[in-house]
Each structure stands twice: as C-alpha cells, then as structure tokens.
C-alpha cells in the first residue's frame, strides 16, 4: 500500500449564499498528516468538516490555500485525477450496477484487465467480509452491508488517501459500533492514510491517531485523542470532548514545570503550564479529577444519586453549578441525598484553561 503524506496549508473556503453574503465555511486552516495516519476531523454541525474533506477530494476548490499530497499541490487537479477515494455518508452506490460492477468501476477507469479486476474484487470483498456478494444489486443489501461495499469500492483502487464523511451516521447504534471496529481493522490492515469526518466524539476517540477539532471553520486543537481529551486548550474543546467542570482560579505564579493557582482559600500546584496567555484562567476538571473529601474547598449539597452497580453518580449542587462525581463501590453509607459534602480536586489531572 502506498504511504502518502498530506499537508493542508492555509486553506480558506468562502461560499456565497443566495443573497450573495459571504459564508466562511473554512477559515484559514492548516494541518499535516503523516503516512498511514488515521486523522479525524471533529466538530459540531456546520463547522466546515465536510467542506474541508470535499476540498481534499477536489469537489470544492479552495478560495485560498494549498493542499499537498506528497509535496505536490493538487488544488488545480480535478477529482478524477487525484487518486483519493471517498466513502460518502449516503454511500453513493451505483443503483444500476451489481455489487461486483460497483467495486470494479474504479478499476475499469484505471484500465485494469478483467481477470485481474475480478480477482481484486473477490479479495476486497473478503476483506470487508462480504464474500460472494458480487451479483447482488446494492438495493438488496442492508445498510451496514452497503456501507461495507462503499468502503470496498473505495479501497479496491488502492488510493493514496481514503476519506470518510460520517460514514456511520445512517446506521443504528449497535451496527455503528461493529463497523467502527471494522473500519479501524481494515485501515490498519491495508495501512492507508485516512481522514475521517464525524461529529461523534466517541468515534473520534476510538478511531483516530490524531484529532483535528474544528469550530466555525477554524481549528481549535490538534492532538492525539488523549491530549485532546485530557488537555483541552480552551473551554469549547473541554466541553466538546466530554463532561467537564470549570472553576474560576487566580494564577499566582508560573514556575518552570508547574503552576501555582488559588481556588478560594486553597493553593494548588498544577503540574502543567497554561496553554495560552490570558487575563483570566479557569481550572478545568473532568469528573475523574474531582473527589468527595472532608477537607475540600468546595461546598455543596447532594441532589441526586444514580446507582449504576459498580459505581454511582453523585449530582451535587455547588456555588459553581451542578457537579457530577463518579464514585466506585463500596459506597460511603453516610452520603445520601440532601446531605452537605465537600469536594476537592485532583491537581495532577486538572488543567489550566483560558477563560
């Protein structure tokens, strides 16, 4: 399999709406993908993920910027000459062709001999787990099977880069999980460079080598799943990646490897530095960075307890709003609904974020 690097440099895409107003769908973004990497474009609806992907595929022309594939600028190259394959959200299978003809379509465009083409179709059907489906019409397949045919059709031409636009959004929850594992397995098996668009953070976290998190056409953060989850650079990223609580703090001193901050009357040593310069900072804590502790600085009252078996979720009203803390069994029998409690932080995994 070809190992291809991809570089997006200062790409901007401006659409005109029907009133001729400008819409900055993608606003000056840059990122790089190393060969064989699986990158996810993640972000809320309308943030420009699809537009970015379509520019890479060549369906949209960037208003500004360059796209390099193996150091060649492909902006002026039409989609049919780009050697990039895409798996569409609605699959885009050819309804008037059989599964076999669908998969062989790209091979035919590449003028590959019939016998060889048929061998490749068989092989790829084996990889996606649909052996013997050659003669079926696509309309007779289930959603998950159609999805895999679309994937097979993209993979069989051995493209430089594989693009996915929310490929699982039309599937039910269970199938989605299976297909997620399947896609990851196949991508690793063929070792292809892939870009995956989704607005589902679980998909992004489980699939990616690298996450590019976008909002309003701009990139908010780039990093591996752990970084993006554990070290969000701002409140938006923190909230987008999962439950997080923010506490106003005062930064006392920034040392070489740690930062001294004060929350109420308590001073904490946070083992990281603020990511950005700002006037005000908050401390971002995910539920695992919070604990119930008799000498904690934050006071609150237990509102609800949700029993989950091996753990329980405590919903506590505090001056900073409702906070959720997950406690593993065995549980403290003294903690019941209506009781006042104190909450403390785990400074090692808390994060200083510009307000």
């Amino acid at each position, binding site marked *: 399999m070809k190992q291809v690097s991809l570089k997006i440099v200062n790409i901007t895409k401006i659409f005109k709406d029907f009133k001729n107003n400008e819409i900055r769908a993608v606003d000056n973004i840059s990122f790089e993908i190393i060969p064989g990497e699986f990158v996810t474009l993640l972000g809320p609806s309308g943030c420009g993920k699809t537009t970015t992907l379509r520019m890479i595929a060549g369906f949209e022309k960037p208003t500004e910027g360059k796209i390099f594939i193996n150091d060649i600028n492909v902006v*002026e190259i*039409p989609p*049919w*000459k780009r050697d990039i394959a895409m798996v569409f959200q609605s699959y*885009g299978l050819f*309804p*008037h062709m059989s599964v076999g003809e669908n998969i062989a379509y790209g091979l035919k465009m590449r003028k590959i001999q019939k016998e060889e083409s048929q061998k490749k179709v068989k092989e790829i059907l084996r990889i996606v787990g649909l052996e013997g489906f050659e003669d079926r019409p696509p309309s007779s397949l289930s959603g998950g099977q159609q999805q895999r045919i*679309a994937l097979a059709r*993209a993979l069989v*031409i051995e493209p430089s880069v594989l693009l996915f636009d929310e490929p699982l959004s039309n599937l039910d929850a269970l199938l989605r999980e299976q297909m997620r594992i399947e896609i990851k397995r196949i991508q690793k098996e063929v070792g292809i460079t892939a870009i995956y668009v989704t607005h589902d953070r679980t998909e992004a976290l489980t699939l990616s080598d690298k996450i590019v998190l976008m909002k309003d056409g701009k990139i908010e953060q780039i990093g591996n799943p752990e970084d993006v989850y554990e070290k969000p650079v701002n409140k938006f990223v923190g909230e987008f990646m999962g439950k997080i609580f923010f506490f106003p703090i005062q930064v006392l001193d920034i040392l070489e490897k740690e930062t001294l901050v004060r929350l109420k009357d308590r001073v904490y040593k946070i083992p990281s530095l603020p990511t950005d310069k700002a006037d005000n900072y908050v401390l971002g804590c995910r539920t695992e960075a919070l604990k119930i502790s008799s000498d904690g600085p934050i006071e609150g009252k237990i509102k609800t307890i949700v029993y989950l078996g091996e753990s329980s979720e405590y919903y506590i009203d505090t001056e900073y709003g409702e906070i959720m803390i997950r406690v593993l069994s065995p549980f403290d029998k003294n903690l019941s609904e209506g009781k006042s409690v104190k909450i403390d932080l785990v400074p090692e995994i808390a994060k200083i974020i510009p307000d």
Partner: protein
Amino acid sequence: MEQRNWKIIKFLVVALIAFLVLFWVRKTIRNEFSRLFRENSLNLAYSVSAIEPELLTERFPEILYYISYFDGIELQNRPILDVVKSLPDYEYGIENVLYEEFYISQKTVKIDEKQYFVIFSPITKDYEVMGIMIQLHAAENVLKLFRTVDIIFLIVFLIFIAVFSISTFSIDPVTAYATIITFAIVLTFILYPLYEAVRMTFMRTGTFTTKVWKTVLTERAYLKSFSNSILLGTLTATLSTVIGFLFAFMVTRTNFKGKKFVSFMVNLPLISPPFSLTLSLILLFGSNGLITKQILNLNWDIYGLDGLIIAQTMGMFPIAYLTMVGVLESIDSTLEEAAMNLGASRWKVFRTVTLPLSAPGLLSSWLLVFTNSIADFANPLMLGGKFNVLSVTAYLEVSGMNRLDRGAALSLLLLLPTMTAFYLQRYITSKKSYVTVSGKPSGRIVEIVSPSLKKTLSIIVYLIVAFLIGLYSTIFMGCFVKNWGIDYTFTLSNIVEALQRGRKALVDTTFLAAVAMPIAGIFSMIIAFLIVRKKFPGKKLLQGLVLLPFSIPGTLLGISYVIAFNKPPIMLVGTAAIIIINFIIRELPVGVEGGVAALKQIDPSIEEAAQNLGAPPQTVFSTIVLPLIRPAFISSMSYTFVRAMTAVSAVVFLISPRWYHVSMQIYNFSENLKFGLASVLSALLIIIVLSVFGILRVVVKRSEYLQKTII
C-alpha cells in the same frame, strides 16, 4: 501562483500570434478580392468609355459619371465632382488620363450612403484624348463580401480564444467545452433568428425604418387578424377549460363507468397529427360533408370561427384536463368530506371548497390553452375560411406575397400574447402554495355530486368522447371511400395512390424526425446535467434561453429561421439541417425540463463517487447519469420524434422540394379535395405515433423499478 503566471504569459503570446496570423490572412484575402474587383471595374470602364454619352444612362443606369471635354462642355448624371476631388490621388488620376491611361483610385467614395469605385478614363477619338470621364461603379458587393470575411474571421478568432483559454486554464475542460458549445448553439438557433426577425422589421435596404410596423399596426386586415386570434383564443380556452374541468372532476371525484377508457381517449388528441381532427370535421361538416350535405342537406358548413372553436376545443381540452387532474388529485378529498360533515350542502361544498381550491389550476389551464390556441396554425389554415387569424396571415404574407418583413412583424405580434400568457402561467404554477397537498392520496372518493347530476354530467362526458371517437373513425373511413361527398363506394385504391404519391414526404419526414430524435434526447440531457450539476457563469441565462421556445409560436420560429439562415454566415435554407435543427430546438424545453426533474431525484454523491473513482465528467455522464435518467431520456426522444412527425407551423416555412413534410402533403391533398389520400396519410401518422408511444410505454415501464431504487 508562479505556474499560473506562466500560463497567462503563454496564453497572451499565443493569442497575439494567432491574432496577427489571422489578421495577415484577412488582409491578404481582402487585398486579393479588392484587386479582382478593381480589375473587373476597369474592364467595365473600357467598354463604358467607348459608348456615346447619350447612350450611357440607358445602357449603364447604375453608373454615375462626370465628363469634361477639353472644349469646355461638361456632362454628368449626378453632381459627383466635389466628392471625387477630395480623393488624395485625384491629381494622379487626371495625369494618367492625359497620358491616355485608365486609372482606378485606391480609395472608394461615398455618395448617398453608398460606396463607389472611382475610375478616371480618357475619352479618345482617333488616338487623341478629347476629354476626361470619371466613372463611379458601385462597390457594395465587395464591401458586403468584406463584412462577411470579417465576421468569419472574428468567429474563428473567438473560437480559437475560447478553445485555447479553456485548454490552458480550466481544470475541467470537457465541461467547459460542453457549456460553451451549448451556449453557442442556443444563441445561434434561438436568439439570433429572433434578433434577425426583429431587425428585418426595422430595416429596409440598410436603413432604419418603422414603416413595416406602421403598416402592420394600422391596416385593418392585420388588426382584424389580431383581434380574431385573441377572440378565438379566449373562446377556445374558456370552452376547453370548462370541458377539461368537467372531465377531471368526473375522473377524480366520482365513480362513473368507463373511467379508464375515457382517460385514455382524452390523451389521443394530444399526440395525433395536427390535421387529423380538422380533416374529419371537414369530412363530416364541410361544404360537401357527410352530415351537413348528405344527411341533413344544410346550407351551413364548418369553415370559420365556429368550426375553429370546435376543432381547437376537441384538440386542446385534454391540456386543460391533464392540468386539472393534477390539481384535483392534490386537493385532499377529505376536506370536502369534512365540509359535508359540517352540514354544508353538496353544491355549497363545491362552491366554497372545491372551486376556490382549484381556481389557480383553472387559470393556469386557461392560459395554457390560450397560448396553444393563438399559436395554432394547422386548424386555422384548413378551417379558417374567411376568418383570418394572425398565424395564417403571417404565413400568407411570407409564402403568398413574399413579404418576409411583414410576416416577421405579424408573427412577432403573436409573441406578445403567447409570451405573456405563458410566463403568467409559469408564475401561477410556481406559487401554488394554495393547494393543500396531502401526503397520501386517499383511495376513497367522497362523492359531492348528487346521483342525478352525476348521471347528467356523465352523459355529457360520454357524448364528447363519442364525438371524439366519431372523428377518429371518420378518418379511417375516409381511407376506404372512393370520392368523399360524391361517391361512397368502398375502395383500396386510395391506399395505393397515397403511398405512391406520399412516399417521398413520408420517408423524408421519418428520416428527419429519426435524425432529430437522438440528438434532441442527448442534447437535452446534457443541458439538464449542466444546469443541475455544474457551476458556470450565465447559468440562469442559459436556463431562460432554453425555456424560450416554449412560448415562441411555431410561425415565428419558422419565419425567423428563414430570415436568419438564408444569408451568410449561416446558409441553411433548403437543407435537411435547418428542419432537423428546428425540430430539436422546439422540443428542447420539454426534454430539458424532464431531465432536470429526473436529475434532481438523484443523490449527487452517486456522481461524485464516480468522479472520485477516476471517471471524468463525460464518463460520469455516459455510465452513470444517462442510465439513471433513462426514462426522461427516452421520453424526450420519443416526444421529439412524435412532435417532429406531426409538426406544421414552423416546418411549413422550412420545407423545400428536396425535403418535404408529410403534414404539408396531407394539407395539399385535402386542399385539392383528395380527401381519401389525406385520410390515408393521417391514419398512417396516427398509427406511427401511437406505436411509438406504445413502445415507449413498454421500455420505460421496464426501467421504472430503477427510479424507485435511486431515491
């Protein structure tokens, strides 16, 4: 960016070189022709100068001259000396003459808006120069030729620039070429002829004049035709809308017997040849008609307004019917049921619910029929009698009087009401937010007419259908009757004779229609593809232009084709091409609209997937788009074929002895009272048209399952 700059430089350099080369070629051609014309002029000058001056005006009325004898006598037929004196080589010319040499000036002079060559010629007697003669020969021809050469070179240059800039700058050249060619075709064959027609009405021998329009807008006969057209249109539209609504109402709102048969029969007039209903009306009610003469022995015949209304209404109420069926089906019948449950009487439900909800549909049917009626040519031509309508008057001006300019003006006059009605109709249908569309058409019918009224109404429907059947059977009867009106004995000789005499027309027509069919099909699908899927500047303009033929009366299109394509740079009159092109252009809007509707049903990611897998646009079109919109493609083809087979109004101007049309043959036969022959050809056309539609049904049905799986 650097790469781009290089491309621009390369482009400019090549364009400049091309321009220079073309310019040089043009110059050479002009010089060569100029030399040739001057030589001719000189030759002429030799013979002119040898003639006695008294005979000059008689022998060469075109030539202007000035003669000055050395003994002081001057002769001239126009004051030209002052103009000639302003020539830079005037002195040189005089000098030549004194040495007994002819001289033609390098420049031309302009007198009364016309250009002339100037020849200085000696008048000699016994080898002695007696005087000087200055001759002016018309140079219009050479100038005309130069203009044509210039136009051709301009076109060549523009084509070159277009092709070269696309191949240099476009990342999708095939689409760009397709777009440009489409634009060129549409501009050349829709806009240019119309422009030429308008121009002709304002120009006479090169100068602007409003004389034609003054005549057309003041002469009583013309104004009468115009008001007749409007009158006929109004009456036919009203009657057709009433009948169409009645039929539609009965079919959608009641359970009367023979519904299927009625809705089949109603489709017949829409596809049958234009002269067929007219012909059978003449056979039955003409001056020698079966009913009027043989049975009732009346003094009345059908020619004139009443006959026209009957013929047009029978032919056009199906248009209103189809529109109204669509409208009534989209009005949820449960609304009427609800009103009835609230205690409203049946008549009140109809008046307060059904009628208001179908009002926009009624208006739109009316306008559609109105447009068709006043653009109609075939019925008035055959049945009009003394009742002249605009389309026929325009035709007679052109073919009878050879007054193309008046014909053009009259048919342009026709455009006014057709266009207004057409675009008004479009506007209404685009805003039909009025109508409550229910998602599920309920199979149940709430009858809002009382049983007795239903009976009366169905009898009317049956009678009209029976009349229609009667008309069609008359044509088939006419085929086997020896001499309609005189001798009704059975014979087969008509068939033999009609096939002999009509063979050429039939073969020509079928050939022309068969050639137009695939071209129209593919072309309209390509345009639909460009419009729905591609981005390019001027898309709105293209859409508007493609739609235009919908509202252009065939008469106008025919006349403007004759005007535009009977002169350089495009000379097509008399060829098969002009007829084929006309067929294609006239049916383009229908095909394109069908294609657009079909394409909009198809998920664009199917085509994107194909591109993504390496298929360039032309391959996407042929392997993905065309198979997926096959029903629209086939409909467009068969529609073009049928309409071409049954065309009259435009093609009547374009036929020639070499390429004839069967409709005109039918018309000629019946004008010469050869009703048997006309009947045979009409019947044959009906059979051909019906079988084409039958085949189409089968073919499209088979691919219908496809369409369902796409969405």
